[in-house]
């Protein structure tokens, strides 16, 4: 609802020395990120995130208590496939997915539940700036934690089973490159899923059901025809992982999308989703009733 009385450039007596728009937006974004990062890492809600991100590390570390089952896994090269299974099946599809869901849905939905979103809405900050500040803070939290999960679980697995071979693999062989690629995929997953769950949290009062539907869609991706596979985040991420595992006898095979398409596609998709979210957030009202 636009006013006919617009006079938006009128300065206010008590306003901040606002400087240029970009420098002001930067200051505001950093201020928002300051609090939000603290919340993402230190609030009670962060406990679940630590649980999700830390679970593979704990599980794999517990394996270290037992002697390596060398009979079952004599071939060092099999480890690449084992980790690809752990990464694709557990870390990427489940832990990062739900970790991002938890963090990014709560960026706005959590504040509505806590009845504290109005403090942001009552500040002279563009809502798009608020959205970006919150998104970046969520991104930092998830990237830090899930990169540690990705790298940590890979290193634990390799060094637990084959410490000597692993040293050579990571420092002289392809291991280092694979590790960085997995971490890169994790970062892209956080970027893509983060944007998806941010907008889900903005649009839905109860985002659990749409979240579960998305989870189902991402899981059945291997059954979908090639065209539909592309309407998902997981397809592009799976195309980027360094070791491809078999998706089973029922999988519909499709060529992986090359990295030069996958990465820009994911970033473009994220940009579009954030743009839509920023259009929506300008129209968001706060009543808290019923939330």
């Amino acid at each position: 609802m636009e006013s006919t009385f617009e006079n938006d450039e009128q300065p206010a007596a008590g306003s901040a020395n606002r400087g240029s728009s970009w420098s002001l937006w930067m200051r505001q974004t950093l201020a928002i990120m300051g609090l939000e990062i603290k919340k993402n890492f230190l609030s009670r809600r962060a406990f679940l995130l630590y649980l999700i991100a830390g679970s593979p590390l704990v599980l794999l570390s517990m394996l270290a208590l037992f002697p390596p089952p060398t009979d079952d896994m004599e071939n060092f090269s099999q480890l690449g496939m084992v980790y690809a299974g752990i990464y694709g099946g557990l870390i990427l599809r489940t832990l990062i997915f739900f970790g991002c869901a938890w963090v990014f849905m709560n960026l706005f939905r959590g504040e509505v539940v806590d009845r504290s979103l109005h403090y942001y809405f009552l500040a002279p900050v563009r809502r798009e700036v608020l959205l970006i500040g919150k998104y970046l803070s969520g991104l930092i939290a998830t990237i830090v934690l899930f990169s540690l999960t990705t790298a940590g679980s890979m290193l634990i697995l390799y060094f637990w089973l084959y410490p000597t071979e692993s040293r050579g693999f990571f420092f002289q062989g392809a291991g280092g490159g694979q590790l960085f690629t997995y971490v890169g995929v994790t970062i892209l997953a956080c970027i893509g899923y983060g944007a998806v769950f941010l907008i889900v949290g903005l649009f839905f009062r109860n985002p659990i059901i749409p979240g579960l539907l998305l989870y189902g869609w991402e899981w059945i991706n291997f059954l979908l025809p090639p065209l539909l596979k592309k309407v998902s985040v997981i397809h592009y991420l799976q195309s980027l992982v360094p070791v491809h595992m078999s998706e089973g006898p029922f999988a519909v095979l499709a060529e992986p999308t090359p990295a030069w398409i996958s990465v820009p596609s994911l970033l473009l998709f994220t940009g579009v989703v954030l743009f839509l979210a920023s259009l929506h957030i300008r129209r968001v009202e706060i009543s808290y009733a019923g939330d």
Partner: protein
Amino acid sequence: MTPNTISSTTEPASTPAEFRTAVASQAFDKMIVFEDVSKFYGEVLGVNRVNLQIVPGITSLVGPNGSGKTTLMNLMTGLLKPTSGRISVLGTSPSHPETVFQKLGYCSQFDSFPHGATARGFIEFYLRVHGFTTQESTELTHQALERVSMLEAADSKISGFSKGMRQRVRLAQSIAHNPSVLVLDEPLNGLDPMARAEIIRLFRQLADAGMYLIISSHILHEVDMMSDSVVLLHNGYIVAEGEVHGVRDEIDEHPIQILIRCDRPQILAARLFEHEHTVEARIHDDRQGLFVKTRRPDDLYLLLNKVITEHALRVESVAPVDDDLNAVYQYLITSDGGQG
């Protein structure tokens, strides 16, 4: 005071067209203007066809629960979007928060704070979001906390504060950036009599300095004490607006009922009955409170302070009860062929 006919600081215009003409003839960037504003929550009416001009000073929005006070305030601050009509706050649309909140502060009724925040940290943080530097934020926070007498508790966690202290923190946050418009939703809720008097004094100072204060209240004697003008709302409609003296006569006729939650209410009852304007005193069913009806609440508050000190009573809260207000409304909106 009769509906829509009281002496008015801003002569009400009877139609939107007349209202637009009236607004156009004045400097709209010096006023808060509602032009034919309606808000519906689905099929439920929030406010309907509100035409209003608010000038500097204290304007009270008065009405029983559900009358549309908070809706008007949320519309003015952009937390809600009008279903139809236009709003301007000193020439700026509330749909542009980046501009409007440079000159507007809103102390809402939402009693919630970020987890683990201290009063100082909470206010400082939101000043940083405004774009103030760290040093400016620190100074402004100090000034705001000083104004609401919260400096001593500034570094304590808000979660440990009483309702009144939390109210004062919210108030400090809303005035910290020195806005020229201050919107306050039931700002005296939960405050003890001393704090009420102090905060009302602060409001008066701000209004005298040329600020616009829009205050919602369902407590008529408070409105009488602090307002320059009142807007009386009922079921989403403005039923009357104008200067406050019209309300004053009505208040004098109607005793106000106050609930004092405390231990040993019987002692309090005995003492309050000594007060000549006490009409009725009734102990609450749970024996942890006292309903008092009085025609002079200010005198009662003074006496209350004395009794609390003398008998070392533990008072949890002092709050007016709605019923009497509703009675006054019924009177106001039905008398003289009113619209009730």
